[in-house]
């Protein structure tokens, strides 16, 4: 799936009716099966960018296109994952992951079968009937990831999916994310504030300016795949990470 952002900009309205520019204008392209990480200072409009791509936030000017089609509503090939797991507390793990299938009108037997096959990959097979309140933060995010995978999307939109987790869990989940993606390679756009995470996961790292976020740097990460956790000690990795850090710091942290 090719994605194109053309001078995409989003403004919010202040309480007094004034215009508050939140994002852009920003332009870049993402080619099929590319893994792009977006980094930038907090409040720079990264989440707004993801929401615009997901069709949840109409742009004030410019366009986001998917295979040449303007994104003006949630579109079929996209699935989004939020910083918060956003699970329904009244649904079990099984039913939370099956939710997209239920909304798509798939029969109960079929959707349970699909989800039950998926659970082992997420290491959740023992928690099928648990409720979200009984899960740790990491497990909740796995459920949320499962809810993305079950939609079988062509594009994953990840909005700081592991931002609320502790460092160890985050690293573990990041690598699981890569592993899960490898089974059926997808286009991924992921927002993160963690430079190491971005360099380790992505094919390209896009650095955004302070609010309203514009493109400052577009860094190609030519580390070999599969990526492994000890790569973070490679010179190449460190060079790239340094470069991204420098780009961010040039904004005047």
């Amino acid at each position, binding site marked *: 799936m090719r994605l194109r952002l053309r001078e995409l900009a989003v403004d919010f309205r202040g309480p007094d009716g004034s215009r508050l520019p939140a994002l852009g204008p920003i332009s870049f392209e993402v080619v099929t099966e590319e893994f792009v990480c977006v980094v930038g200072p907090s409040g720079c409009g990264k989440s707004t960018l993801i929401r615009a791509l997901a069709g*949840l936030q109409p742009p004030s000017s410019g366009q986001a296109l998917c295979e040449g089609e303007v994104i003006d509503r*949630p579109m079929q090939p996209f699935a989004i994952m939020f910083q918060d797991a956003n699970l329904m507390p009244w649904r079990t793990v099984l039913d939370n992951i099956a939710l997209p299938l239920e909304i798509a009108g798939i029969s109960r037997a079929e959707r349970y079968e699909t989800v039950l096959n998926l659970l082992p990959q997420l290491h959740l097979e023992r928690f099928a009937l648990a409720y979200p309140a009984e899960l740790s933060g990491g497990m909740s995010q796995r459920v949320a990831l499962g809810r993305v995978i079950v939609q079988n999307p062509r594009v994953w939109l990840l909005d700081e999916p592991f931002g609320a987790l502790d460092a160890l869990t985050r690293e573990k989940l990041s690598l699981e994310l890569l592993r899960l993606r490898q089974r059926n390679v997808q286009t991924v756009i992921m927002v993160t504030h963690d430079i190491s995470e971005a360099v380790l996961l992505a094919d390209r790292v896009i650095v955004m300016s302070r609010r309203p976020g514009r493109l400052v740097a577009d860094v190609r990460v030519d580390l070999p795949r599969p990526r492994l956790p000890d790569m973070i000690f490679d010179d190449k990795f460190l060079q790239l990470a340094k470069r991204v850090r420098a780009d961010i710091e040039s904004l005047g942290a």
Partner: protein
Amino acid sequence: MGKTAIRDHEPELWAHIGAWLRRLSPILAVGCLLLLWQFISERELISHILVPPPSAVYLAFVEALGDGRLPKHALVTLEEMLYGLLMGVGIGLAVGYAIAKLPLLEYILAPIIVGFQSTPIVAYAPLLVIWFGSGPTSKVVTTAVIVFFPSLVNTIVGIRGVSPNLRDMMRSLKAGRWQMFRHLEAPSALPVILAGLKTSTTLAVIGAVVGEFVSQGSGLGYLVTSARNLYDTPLVIVAVLTMTSISLSLYGLVSLVEWRFLVWQRRSNL
């Protein structure tokens, strides 16, 4: 060594007894109240004319049960309550949902609704009787009016309380309006709405009985008045306690529904 073992055991035993006492304490409180009542009437600290002894109330209960008066009037009141609840809660849900969705509607309706709510029902119950007749309709309407508000407010609170993030998530799943309601809004608002329903059930008996006081004929409110007019204070108490029981039973029923449907909340609180 042995001593230590016993000492280790003791706190646990006490904790156990404490837990049981805690569980039994509401029953003990009711028991104490009954004992106090028995004591007062036995010593005749207050005249039997004002506070008849429990035994007299029990006899009145048995008699009214035996000759069918109590079940007859209780059924009338119960029926009025149920229809009133159905009507009031139904309208409360519908209007509450509409208001939650359209803030403008709240702006328009707020003075009327708050005005109705802040006016004591007894004050305008006679009007309801003139408008809706002295039959069961006026009592059903009185009940509906009184149970409407908690149902309305809790529906608004429940629907407004739906997480905006979950709404976004549902939108990203391309959920339609009905699916949004069925899979997100309804289950999310259910705990608050059930809490409102609990309040409504306890109020329902007030509505029905106020209506029965205003226009006589049948029902527990009528039984109170007619017993009072025959100076049968034990029967008055029987009728009042029957109202309490009906109210508590409905409350219990809603709690049961809550228990059944909100498994996740119970598990979450563990």
